[in-house]
């Protein structure tokens, strides 16, 4: 037999007495904490609601917290109660001799199994439905936005230790700052010229590694205007900590006037740049840190 449950005394009555109290305490505490998480903290949760993916992160974080708070409370309340009630009160005697309980064990395995598989299913849905949830999907993404409408493509080029942005729909110009139009589907093409970096636009809810010679695509859709911070999130050397800049989500008209003026302003420089490509070959022995298209190198 796998489990012995040769219990003595009146274990069932004891279990009902203590178990009832623990359950009541746990239930009340869980309801209170979950309501606070959902209705008080939830509306103010980071990273905010600037894009669909950021809002998705808030929703997922909220759901996970509402599910995990009762687990945390269950262990705390059970543990706290037991340590107080079942402490050695100076009598120095042994505890209740029991080596297992088939019913309790089976319930535990089943509940944790259901919870875990449910979480994985939820996570999978939340990954696939919003087109990869703002995560880098590599060069050939399999989860794409549904709408066939206008998508703005922004290439993020990371190098030690800065980000620059290329705009294929604006003559392939390159800028050192980033502005995005509101209510627009955005496709980020993230790549690197040297080591592995990571493009983390915190308020946009986008994160994608910048790998040398590889394109890493991530999608989001802007919903609100405002400022966002871009940080490198993969250790890339000495100045990793200083590799950040800021961008703005602005109204569509301001975006287009900015983009067109930048395109005109940079036209003379854009000519000197390599042809737009999804990745570029690093050439570290060229003075000035220039780069060339891999086909030209």
């Amino acid at each position, binding site marked *: 037999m*796998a*489990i012995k449950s040769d219990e003595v005394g009146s274990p069932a009555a004891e279990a009902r007495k*203590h178990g009832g109290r623990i359950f009541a305490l746990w239930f009340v505490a869980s309801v209170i904490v979950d309501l606070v998480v959902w209705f008080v903290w939830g509306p103010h949760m980071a*990273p905010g609601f600037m894009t669909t993916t950021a809002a998705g*992160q808030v929703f*997922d*974080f909220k759901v*996970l917290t509402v599910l*995990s708070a009762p*687990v945390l409370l269950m*262990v705390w309340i059970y*543990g706290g109660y*037991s340590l107080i009630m*079942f*402490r*050695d009160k100076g*009598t120095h005697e042994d*505890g*209740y*001799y*029991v*080596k*297992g309980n088939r019913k309790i064990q089976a319930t*535990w*395995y089943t509940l*944790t199994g259901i919870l*875990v598989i449910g*979480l*994985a299913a*939820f*996570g999978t849905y*939340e*990954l*696939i439905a*919003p087109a990869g949830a703002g*995560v880098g*999907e*590599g*060069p050939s993404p*399999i989860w794409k936005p549904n709408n066939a409408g206008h998508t703005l493509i922004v290439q993020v080029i990371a190098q030690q230790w800065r980000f620059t942005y290329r705009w294929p729909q604006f003559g392939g110009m390159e800028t050192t700052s980033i502005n995005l139009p509101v209510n627009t589907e955005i496709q980020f093409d993230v790549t690197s010229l040297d*080591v*592995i970096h*990571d493009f*983390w636009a*915190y308020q946009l*809810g986008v*994160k994608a*590694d910048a*790998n*040398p*010679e590889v*394109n*890493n695509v991530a999608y989001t859709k802007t919903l609100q205007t405002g400022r966002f*911070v871009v940080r490198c*999130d993969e*250790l890339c*050397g*000495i100045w*990793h*900590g200083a590799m950040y800049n800021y961008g703005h989500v602005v109204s569509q008209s301001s975006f287009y006037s900015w983009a067109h003026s930048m395109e005109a302003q940079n036209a003379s420089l854009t000519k000197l740049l390599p042809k737009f490509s999804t990745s570029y070959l690093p050439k570290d022995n060229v003075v000035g840190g220039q780069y060339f298209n891999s086909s030209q190198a």
Partner: protein
Amino acid sequence: MAIDMSQSTGVGRSGDAGGASAAPSSRYRLNFITGTIAAAIGYLFGHWLGNAIAGHYPSIVNSGSNDPAMLLGFIFGTVGWFAGLGALNYPIAKLWGREVPLAEKKDKYPFMEYFSYSTDHKVVGKQYLVGMLFYFFIGGLLALAIRTELLSPTYHIWGPATYIEVVGEHGTMMMMMMTSIVMGPFGNFLIPLMIGSKKMAFPRLEAASFWFTIPAFFALLSALWEGGFQTGWTGYAPLSIQGGVGQDGYLYGFAMMGFSMILASINMVATIINYRAPGMRWSRMPVFAWGMITTAFTMLLSVPVLIDGLYVLGLDRAVQTSMLYGEHGGSPFLWENLFWFFGHPEVYLLALPGFALTTEILPVFCRKPIFAYKTSAAGMIGVAVLSFFVWQHHLFNSGINPDMRPLFMLSTELISIPTGFLYLVGMGTIWRARVRFTVPMLFMLAVFFNFLWGGITGVYNSDVPVDALIHGSFFVMAHFHFTIMGQLMFAVMGAVYYYTPLLFGIKLSEKLGKIHFWSMFIAFNSTFIPLFIVGFLGQPRRVFEYATRLQGLNQWVTISSYVLGLSLAFFVVTFVWQLVVSRPASPKNPWESRGMEWQVNIPIPAENFERIPVVLSGPYEYGNPNAGPIADLDPVVVGSES
């Protein structure tokens, strides 16, 4: 059950192969001093050789850093180290056809034995304990240096170059050395006692596993004098190929520690399978032994992959093989996969020993059997097996095969089921117990409290959409500090208090221990809980500059970390004081444990057991009025006079 007692009279008696007369004279005993001298000579030779071979290559002349010389220096230095320690005497003697027996075990050793290539498992256990705690405190000091820099978002104490060196040294020191902080000291010392053996299966491998940690430590630390390495412990290529020769210290040190882990785990597996006393069935084996064998198997299967990766990295650096960077056909993804194929099992081989210690010690102070013993073994086996199927969750943002993400999300979340088993066991064990709040027990309860934070936030990390928010941030950093420091190091501290009577014959003060516990517990949580918030609010790991709005939280964390440091310093001072000066004597079996390791006298006899004991019942029969003794320590040997 028929018991073959013939084995018990022979197995495990040291010196029985060739008789005591052939034991080497202790006057000429080599030790760490001769080892250090030979290591220095070896290093200089290797470095010279590397310069002679590769010094004129344009890539080396132009870069000014000679990786072949550095690596050959390390390799010959290590060979010299082992030759100087006397580790090579045995194989050389075998080549000459002589059989050299193991040194005879003694009740009391001269002090220098602890600085020599000792093959007594009790000496190796103590060497490991002191060594590992030393490495831990060096890593801890580096952590305080990191926190000091983060007192201000803009004002720099170290500067970015030193800061990144310190971050890399701290991370690598902790992650590579702490893999052995349980198996090394407690595994080697206790497993033979727990399973009723006189020795470990391979005493020479056991000694080698400890003495490999020294070159590992110094190779890693030497990076600080060579400009450090800027990659952190993960060593991502091509950054790791770009760096100077400090990176060679990282890869060589890590590889040496890998050898140490492989040797220790081979020894552990062989011992637990083959050296169990009669009657020590798998179903009676202490949970700690289950923890050690699952950890050892996990090490055996994962560490070779790391060494392979480091070998590739070393070749890329030293002879430009281009396997880990793109220009000539390699890929940085190769390193990411090789590294994390080791790296994720690694975090479980940090966690499993902590749970093994906790589950072992919990019933002693609950005065109850372990609840669902088989579930605890199944939990550890489940964690060990699943740990090989989750590694790409570190690469959710990397762009590697996105279609595999749901699978890795599922496998990662599945690992909460066997981890949950261990909580079920712990919670079941305190049900209607008679809990004694001794210092070891407080630490074990803290293990459950701390790991809960780490475990639950682990589910957040495994969820791809949420991971997009917290990957690479302080949230992740807080998560794994809860699972490693909050779990493993609390278990280790508890085990130090619990096992000092066996290891050193002293019982540490409960009063001082409680001061240590409460200060460490509160300071630890005060340090790491705010870091979840810091990461959630957008601070990436390993940065020296951060948003001004996060300064208050960062300062709180830094000050808490100083208190944590003071608490650990308090432990060191009180521990050394009690060990060296006051030496409060311990009675036999002070915790009234049923474990076989406690049935021997203190100090433990040289051979552990007069005869190989016959195990009669399980070790956790607390509260069972009909429980007999755990073992017959003086079994009658059929056919002998006694």
